[in-house]
């Protein structure tokens, strides 16, 4: 197998996971105007739940399902318990200032991240542990030549593809999905047409929780699981979201795959220790060249 194909296949599989993370970030950003820095903390926590269930002899798939459901619940909980009371305090002097309205939710999400990490440490001793995958991580063979793609890679790509198809159907064909798009575009008009914007926002948090907990389940068989493993994934997902356009769902997926290829090619052709620097350079480049992202619409400065 040539290095190029190796990098390409592993980039596709990694990119699929990054696309999920970035999709989760963009969903919350579009529906609530918050970049959720606790997102991968939530995913870490639900993956630990799955790991615990598997240890207690539950099957992989039931643990998988429960992790996804708890991801949705955790996302909704963050919105209902924290973000909603926070943004409803319009009269607070601090939130009157323009910049603080975006800063305070960011700080709040960091608080959640800290609490979730500490709780994971307390419940599960914080040591690194493995996480099983439902398919063998061996390279696929055609005859005698083994391909650079593993069965697990195919599983990841398939799962993400299915998720993306379901998400697209949800947003284009169902009333709930249309309501979400409407309230992201113009909450005031949406409210006037009888849609409960608050609940639509909570739904956005829940779906984002599902996407990120899925990402956690898919990435940990390779990276192992510890309270800090998924931090890197958040950084990559954020960069992917910015590259694709924070305001565009399709852009976030595109950004995820681009980042997957960038990281994979840096890994293969350069050295793994260059990955961080590559991410930073790529992010800065994207911000300078096209701050609204590849598919994002140009933001209008509010006057």
């Amino acid at each position, binding site marked *: 197998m040539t290095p190029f194909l190796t990098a390409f296949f592993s980039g596709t599989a990694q990119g699929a996971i990054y696309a999920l993370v970035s999709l989760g970030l963009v969903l919350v*950003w579009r529906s609530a105007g*918050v*970049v959720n*820095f606790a997102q991968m903390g939530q995913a870490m926590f639900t993956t630990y739940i799955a790991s615990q269930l598997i240890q207690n002899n539950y099957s992989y798939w039931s643990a998988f399902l429960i992790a996804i459901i708890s991801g949705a619940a955790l996302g909704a909980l963050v919105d209902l318990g*924290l973000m909603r*009371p*926070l943004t409803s*305090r319009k009269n*607070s*002097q*601090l*939130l*009157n*200032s*323009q*910049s*603080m309205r*975006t*800063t*305070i939710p*960011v*700080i*709040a999400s*960091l*608080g*959640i*991240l*800290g*609490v979730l*990490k*500490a*709780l994971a*440490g*307390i419940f599960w*001793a*914080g040591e690194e542990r493995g996480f099983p995958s439902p398919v063998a991580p061996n390279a696929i063979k055609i005859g005698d030549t083994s391909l650079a793609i593993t069965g697990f890679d195919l599983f990841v790509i398939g799962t993400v593809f299915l998720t993306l198809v379901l998400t697209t159907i949800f947003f284009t064909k169902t009333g709930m999905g249309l309501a979400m798009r409407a309230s992201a575009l113009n909450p005031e008009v949406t409210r006037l047409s009888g849609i409960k914007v608050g609940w639509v926002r909570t739904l956005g948090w829940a779906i984002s929780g599902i996407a990120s907990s899925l990402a956690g389940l898919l990435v940990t068989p390779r990276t192992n699981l510890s309270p800090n493993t998924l*931090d*890197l994934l958040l*950084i990559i997902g*954020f*960069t992917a979201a*910015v590259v694709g356009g*924070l305001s565009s769902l399709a852009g976030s997926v595109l950004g995820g795959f681009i980042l997957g290829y960038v990281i994979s090619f840096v890994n293969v052709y350069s050295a793994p*220790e*260059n990955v*961080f*620097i590559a*991410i*930073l350079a790529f*992010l*800065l480049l994207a*911000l*300078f060249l096209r*701050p609204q992202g590849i598919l994002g619409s140009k933001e209008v400065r*509010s*006057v």
Partner: protein
Amino acid sequence: MSKVKTHKVIGLHSTLLSLVLFLFFILLSNQFEPYNQSQLANIAMLLIAVLSITLLTGASGQISLGQGAIMAVGGYSSALLVTRLGLSMWLAFILAIFVSALFGLFLGLAAARLSGPYLAGTTLVMALAIPSIAVRFETFFSGDVGLSVDYGMPPEWLTNLVGEISIEEWSLYVVLPFTAVALFAVLNLSNSRTGRTWRAVRDNEVAASLAGINIGRTKVIVFVCASGLAGLAGALYGFRGLVAPSVYPTDLSLTLLTAAVIGGLRSIGGAIFGTFVIVFLPDLIEKATSNLAIPETVGIYLPALTIGLLLLLTVILNPRGAAGALEHLRHKKKH
């Protein structure tokens, strides 16, 4: 920073406050064991970094999750100046301010184009990437091993003056003058015309620009000042013994932000309070729980849990922090 000098509010008030804090630390250190003295020195260093957040977020509304990385810039530049060029520690500290301010200039030029969430994310990426640069260019930055630097021994004239002092006490004496000057500078800045300009940008960019304030330039200036402070803090922090990637982890950036928020983002007194909390809280919790039979694996996560919960409670119940709550109480009494 030159604006401060030209303006008349180099107040008696801020001079006194800085002196009082200076003396308070020295008096406190005389009552303490060496361990607590080193903690006091830690507070004095980290306070400078927390003040940089008070400037950046509290006064101008920009958020940085990467102050720890800027501390690393200050730490590495001072450590390299001392170990490679043989400069004196004091000169290296002052040069570290300039190096990190220069770094802040580049960062600020990027940041001026970014609003809240973009800036937060970009600085967070930076917080992760900068320590890895030290590993990448191992021959220059000594990789994971890091550079060993320390405050050295107390000079003879000082030991002649006050008698034998411990290494910990000496570190406190080195750091305190810097802390006092930093405090003085920040107090003056926030009371001056410059500080008011920053607050105008924070509260309403459009109104500020209509009033003739150059938004982009203002944001860059704030970044330069805050980075200089953070770099100084990082240099002092590194000279406790080691400048290495592990000394400036991402968690450090978040802890500093927590300190600023708990105390109150808009208050300098709040910054002092918040810094005391993050340094002393872990010990207090350890003492409080030592009698309870808590397994060690749980115990090591309790400080992080408490600090995280404190941050959340502050943000939900009282986003203006301890200082805001105090002001609220005082206000109530008057009426």
